[in-house]
């Protein structure tokens, strides 16, 4: 029951718990929100997957256009974002599964696994793009 219900017109003066802007960013909190952010980004990324498949099903011309779009700078920018989001979400997802199994909750270990996730996300993204550029004959 709120104060307004007891005394009509009264304003609640109960203290609020400190919100996001009060805390300075920590590796644990930043990586946690990034897991959700990349998850949302990947959900938008599924639109490009569906477009790519439907274009292929539609025929050679549509597929050609889709491939040209994916190869354009804006298409590559989207794919770069999606690929980094994926490798981040995958790496941190493995970290989540380890936690779900009941391991690695110590604060010092949390930092180590957090750094490992960031290194893995960047490493796998760079590796993927190097292979893609070699395959495209650009490297």
């Amino acid at each position: 029951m709120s104060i307004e219900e007891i005394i009509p017109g009264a304003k609640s003066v109960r203290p609020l718990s400190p919100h996001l802007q009060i805390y300075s960013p920590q590796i644990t909190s930043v990586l946690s929100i990034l897991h959700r952010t990349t998850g949302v980004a990947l959900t938008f990324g599924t639109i490009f997957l569906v477009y790519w498949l439907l274009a292929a099903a539609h025929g050679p011309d549509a597929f050609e256009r889709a491939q040209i779009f994916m190869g354009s700078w804006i298409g590559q920018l989207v794919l770069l974002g999606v690929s980094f989001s994926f490798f981040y979400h995958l790496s941190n997802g493995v970290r989540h599964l380890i936690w779900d199994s009941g391991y690695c909750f110590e604060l010092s270990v949390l930092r180590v696994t957090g750094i490992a996730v960031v290194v893995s996300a960047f490493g796998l993204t760079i590796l993927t793009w190097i292979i893609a550029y070699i395959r495209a004959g650009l490297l």
Partner: protein
Amino acid sequence: MSEIQKPLAQASSVAGIKQGGASHWWGQRLSAIVLAPLMLWFIFSALGLVGADHSAFVIWLSFPVNALLMALMVITLFFHSQQGMKVIVEDYIQNVAVKLKTLMMLKVFAYIGVISSLLAIFLLHFRS
């Protein structure tokens, strides 16, 4: 008595055990475990298809293994994505009407995504 029970009933009706919180938790983890290798396989395959023309793509999808894994990947992907977005919407949207509408749209989005992807895979697989 009902006054005392009210907050608990309210709390459990938001996203509690009554609405299948435990099965949602398991669904999210199991789909993650299934999806991880499928996505890695897909990226590996997509790298092989860099710069591929339409006929090369059709030949690739004509292999039953590729078509089957693509279908499994798409189903698991949209399930996992919808489950994850559901939690985010439940957490951040407080207006019940807006929340329910958004959850419904997320489901529709996921179904459209799965059905159109499966249709495309099916058509491409049986093209050659």
